[in-house]
């Protein structure tokens, strides 16, 4: 199969999947009775009188298929509903909270990948040595740590004892005022980046201070995951013929490991980047909720506990589509560089 036809096949496959995603989301929506979905539009108990009117107005008692297409039409026009919890439309809320989460991901992702690969390589290169044992034990501990508990313990230490060193939320009060003032332009809404662009170092420093604990919380579990993967992949690649040849040729051990073995061992790590994306999204919900860091994950959590159905479904749809696209890109890149995959047709 040519790469192009593979690409076309994958893109075509995307259609039923995305269609199915919307049906699944809509199906979940149907688990709520009509009056409960109407409650979303009720802000005050005194408005309960008008529920029948609201049900009529939004067609909540229409036949299912009709509601589905109405809803789908709304989704296509970018209207995902109203997010009661934050008082803006779901689409606005996604764009409003995305930068905070991106900021978190921009710091956490390289730490996770580089840290994991580095530890995994070390561990494999010194198989059964003390470094290997320590990092393997560390990986098992990290892998078993409940993220939310770890975050809370960090909070207990840094709120309780090292008070004020790593504060919660995204910005300190005085800095927040600077960021919102007329002289400060919010180009990207990523605070540290805007700080650099505005040449306002207090903002950069403050943004970084606020992000340390969330990034640590988000990274620990996932570093363990990448490290384990990298270690086994590295061990396998160290056992391969060409490595033995390289060693036999008398190349220094460092070159063998860093140049030859690691390069090949990294392929499986790259293939799980889709999985890593999902793991980060999962982690973001928990991390942001713990540190009151107002990004997408925080919003998803608030909307979920307040049963803000349109928001939680809108967010699920958004993250689902993003996840599908990420996986697609990963698979395409993988297929581009490793032609064997295409022949099988199946990716995993």
């Amino acid at each position, binding site marked *: 199969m040519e790469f192009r036809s593979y690409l076309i096949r994958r893109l075509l496959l995307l259609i039923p999947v995305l269609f199915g995603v919307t049906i699944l989301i809509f199906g979940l929506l149907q688990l709520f009775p009509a009056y409960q979905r109407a409650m979303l539009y009720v802000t005050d108990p005194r408005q309960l009188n008008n529920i029948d009117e609201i049900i009529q107005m939004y067609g909540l008692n229409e036949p299912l298929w009709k509601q589905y297409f109405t809803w789908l039409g709304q989704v296509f026009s970018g209207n995902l509903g109203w997010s009661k919890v934050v008082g803006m439309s779901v689409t606005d809320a996604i764009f409003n909270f995305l930068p905070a989460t991106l900021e978190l991901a921009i710091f956490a992702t390289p730490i996770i990948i580089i840290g994991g690969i580095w530890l995994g390589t070390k561990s494999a290169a010194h198989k059964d040595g003390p470094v290997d044992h320590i990092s393997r034990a560390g990986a098992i501990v990290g892998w078993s740590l409940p993220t939310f508990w770890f975050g809370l313990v960090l909070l207990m230490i840094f709120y309780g004892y090292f*008070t004020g060193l790593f504060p919660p939320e995204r910005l300190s009060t005085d800095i927040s005022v600077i960021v919102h003032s007329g002289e400060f332009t919010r180009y990207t809404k990523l605070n540290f980046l805007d700080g650099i662009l505005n040449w306002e170092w207090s903002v950069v420093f403050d943004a970084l201070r606020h992000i340390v604990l969330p990034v640590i919380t988000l990274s620990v579990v996932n570093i363990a995951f990448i490290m384990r993967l990298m270690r086994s992949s590295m061990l396998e690649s160290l056992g391969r013929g060409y490595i033995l040849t390289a060693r036999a040729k008398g190349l220094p051990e460092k070159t063998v490991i860093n140049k030859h073995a690691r390069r090949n061992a990294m392929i499986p790590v790259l293939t799980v980047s889709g999985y890593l994306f999902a793991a980060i999204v999962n982690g973001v919900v928990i991390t942001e909720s713990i540190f009151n860091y107002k990004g997408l994950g925080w919003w998803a959590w608030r909307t979920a506990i307040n049963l803000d159905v349109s928001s939680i479904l809108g967010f699920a749809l958004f993250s689902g589509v993003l996840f599908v696209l990420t996986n697609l890109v990963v698979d395409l890149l993988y297929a581009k560089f490793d032609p064997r995959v295409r022949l099988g047709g199946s990716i995993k």
Partner: protein
Amino acid sequence: MKLKPWRILGIIAVVIVITALILPGCQTDKPPIKNPDTFIAASIGGPETLDPAAAYDSASGEVLQLVYEPLVYYKGEKTDEYEGILADEWEVSRDGMTYRFHIREGVTFHNGNELTPEDVEYTFERALVQDYVGAPTWMLYEPLLGIGTNSHVGDDLRPLSDLTSTVEVVEDGWVEFYLASPYEPFIQIIAGFWGGIMDKEWCIENGDWDGTQQSYEALNNPAANAWPLDLLTNGTGPFKLDYWDKAVEVSLVRNDNYWREPASFERVLIKDVPEWTTRKLMLQNGDCDWAYVPTLNYLEMEGAEGIKVYEDLPLVQCEGFFFNFDISPDSQFVGSGQLDGNGIPLDFFADIDVRKGFTYCFDWEAYIDDAMMGYGIQPASPVVKGLAYYNPDLDTYYENDMAKAEQHFKAAFGGEVWDKGFTLTLAYNSGNDTRKVACEILADNINSLNPKFNVTAAPQEWTSYGAQMYARILPCFQIGWIPDFFDAHNFIYTWMHEGGYWAYYQSYNNQEATDKVEQAIASIDPDERQALYDELAQIHYDDCPGILLVQPTGNRFFKDWVKGYFFNPADSANYGQLYKMSKEY
């Protein structure tokens, strides 16, 4: 040289340790005032909207009371005396039907426009025109056009002239309101944040009602947050809106052209901090000047340094437990729906002995001590302390009396309830521990009377709780009331008038009570009103349509450098009136 990752980690660790050692060492006796020119509030939840005619939640009110000003407001800590704000003089006609206000001169809006009597007329007409379904506008309709009215008559819009004729500019800066019938608390309604005066010219410029029929039709009862002034503000108040970062914070800056002395604070930041731990930390560190502290957390704040606590403030609120007289057949809480031991009949609570049996099983002492941590008192009537016509001498209290409870249960349904027993689930909205405890107390005491009684408690999500209350699915419900104004009418109507919010949802319909409520509000004789409200208290006691659980009291927690706070239950903000406050030692 390339830095090895472990070296970087090492450096970071050293920095952390050094900073940690230095930080606690810097403390002196009186720490310097942080952000001395800014008042920072750590609150929960943000505003719904900034349109004074649509906002009905206290978070919106917090902001609106800083930006907009009413004609009159409550004086100091009083809820029955008033001072002129944008009106410098006012009078009420002898028949109680006409209210006259003289509008203050030399006041400007934040955009520089001057305040005129036409602005006042426009403000109230605009509110009547908009009449958003979730808005407090019913409070204007009730005195101006009569109880139960709104902008519709049947399915049709009410004629515009009906609305605009209720308020008129008359000679020399006077504005008059013409009431449909006497309504003593009208002056209090004007004082609410929905009475904040707006700039006519600016409103019209921004697409709001321009006085025409066409615009009335277009703007009447809009979809939620779809009104033109949802995010825009232009008031006369001591602060103006700087920015509103939704779900994060609202920032206001001082109005230096204020018609009185400018405020002491240059800036006010109201932050939305849902997590209690964070608010607590902010307050302890002085990163905020006031924080919202839930009643359940009062205990751990005891002995906190640098915190000023205002204790046991009499909140004008009432929490009630309501019996549903006519339960919907769709209810999943009534078991078999029969009086066969496995459920309750749908008219279970229509029997007065059942209601009294339940009421005598409630233990106020355990409830107030444990669930309210002592912060509350048992009310004798829906007219609680702090409202006009509150009577401290009433003795219409129920008490926990298991013998009387047993007697009533034995009499209920001709003895059938006692013989056959019943099964019932009490719902509460999940997360509300106080309501949960109330259910548990009732359930434990009722179950202890007779092994055939089987009452349990079950949590419901708030959205379904509210919806099920509406659909009459809940056999009984607990809910509280926060005052719109400080007159007996606001509470007694809600509890006892057939159209009152809670009475309506429990299908409680006592014609005598309804008549007396209407008679009382239309009276201009204070003695007559007092007598009627006392009679209504007696009816509530005899009829026992619900249990009056508690009137809560509350504490307010400030950083000790905040000066000038006093408690007035009419202030939307729990931190009081910022205009009169400052930060200093």
